């Protein structure tokens, strides 16, 4: 089963587009884009085991570090640069996002929403750090370095002068439209600069 965020991203991207997936994991999204959209794609992944798995799926991937390995690419080299569930795991978010906006005509960012009502409930009433579908980790084993809401991300883009071209919001297997910062577990933004 293809997860909804992959479906949405595949829906956004035009056929034949040139794509760079930052933090591509096991390459499932790239494989989907290659098969469904005939995209020419490549990925960067820090974990060698994931990179080896991505190669098993028949996608091009270079093991690397987002903080170091984006400088070499020329301006607007890719139609889409994807940061799905990876931006909140990098240390220098501004540097990585700036680089992505420089090398990509469009940047797709998928982030978990730390302020979805379930998370708010756990924080406020239970007094616990929230664990939700999009934030499945415990405080001691989460790979996430940053915890932000969809609204936080919108403000961040505004401050940085980044245009949000599209936004889609989802909860588990459904898309949501109303009060996304309250109801959505994750958001997918298409950015441009």
């Amino acid at each position, binding site marked *: 089963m293809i997860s909804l965020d992959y479906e949405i991203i595949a829906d956004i991207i035009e056929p034949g587009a040139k794509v760079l997936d930052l933090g591509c994991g096991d390459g499932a999204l790239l494989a989907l884009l290659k098969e469904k959209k005939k995209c020419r794609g490549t990925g960067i992944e820090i974990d*060698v085991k994931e990179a*080896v798995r991505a*190669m098993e799926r028949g996608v091009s991937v*270079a093991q*690397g570090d987002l903080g170091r390995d984006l400088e070499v690419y020329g301006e607007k080299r890719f139609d889409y640069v994807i940061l799905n569930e990876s931006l909140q795991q990098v240390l220098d978010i501004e540097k990585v996002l700036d680089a992505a906006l420089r090398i990509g005509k469009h940047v797709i960012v998928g982030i978990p929403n730390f302020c979805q009502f379930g998370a708010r409930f756990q924080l406020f009433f239970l007094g616990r750090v929230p664990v939700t579908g999009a934030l499945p980790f415990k405080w001691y084993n989460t790979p996430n370095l940053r915890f932000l809401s969809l609204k936080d991300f919108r403000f961040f883009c505004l401050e940085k002068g980044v245009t949000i071209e599209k936004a889609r919001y989802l909860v588990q297997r459904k898309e949501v439209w109303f009060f996304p910062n309250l109801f959505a577990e994750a958001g997918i933004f298409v950015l441009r600069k």
Partner: protein
Amino acid sequence: MDAASDIKYLTLGGSLKLKSGITFGPITVAYETYGELNPTKSNTILICHAFTGDSHVASHRSGDRPGWWEDMVGPGKAFDTNKYFVICPNVLGSCKGTSGPISLDPKTGKPYGLDFPVITIQDIVMVQKRLLDHLGIKTLLSVAGGSMGGMQSLTWAVLYPDMVQSSIVIATCHRHTAQQIALHEVGRQAVMTDPDWLNGDYYGKEGPKRGLAIARMVGHITYMSQASMERKFGRKLVGKEELGYNISKDFEVEGYLEYRGQSFVERFDANSYLYLTKAMDYFDLTEDGQSLADVFQGVRSDFLVISFTSDWLYPSEQSRTMVRALKANDVGVSYVELDSDYGHDAFLIDFGDQTKVVANYLARVQNDKAGRT
């Protein structure tokens, strides 16, 4: 067929202008092939061997002597000889059938010795190109190699961009560093200060056995890692129960190096050792003052670069430098730094992920090619 006739020989017509400016010939190339060339001649993979390797990359049949990449090459293996036509030539300057210092100089009827011209990785590759021209092969699905073989693979992609569709570059670099040159120089000095070296004119005589063995001992240390040596030998003693407190061998690692040095002398020519280490030391794709990104500008091949975590002789940073320069040119490049504590030797002995990665990469290159046409 017996083993000897698996090696084919081609003597190139005319002579070759070497990088040094010297024109040299005739040149004989020894090579072995595996699998069948398909009717469109589009399934050829050139495998380039490392420093002391040879054309025998794998066995040809059950019972045949195993090759130096036996686990990687054969029916159903990463370099699947049911699908691919694999060619492995012995390099120029070696002593395993292709012309080298040990070959007979037709002018004198004696081995060349130091009259053999100094050669470079580019010269080695040009000889391979002449072999492929002779075989009528115009495209290479892949050129693959580790260490010095990786240098050849890189050089192929730069010199003949229209011919190479993919390049597999393992545990290598684009230019030898001072440290790499220094380690080679220790080996060369060990050979050349052996009184039996006789300025390279030792054929038919004793030969610099002691010097060559010491050179190989140093080499072996650089091919292993601290962890692999510790696991293999630790502080185990050899042939004794307790420390001898004299200057004889105490530790197993000493005995091992002695053994490896001695057995190497039986199978390798000291002058070839000098020439091939020199060829590697001369290797520098950026020698004309260009940046590596500029050097890769014309490259059309897709790349797979592999390095190993414990390889301190060709550290991963050298591979990452190549990956960055390729990316700067929009060249497709896959890269993994595989976990291994075997040191530089990993490309010859640690096959778990290596076979998987190479097999998947080749399958993708073939699929993508089929998708485009």
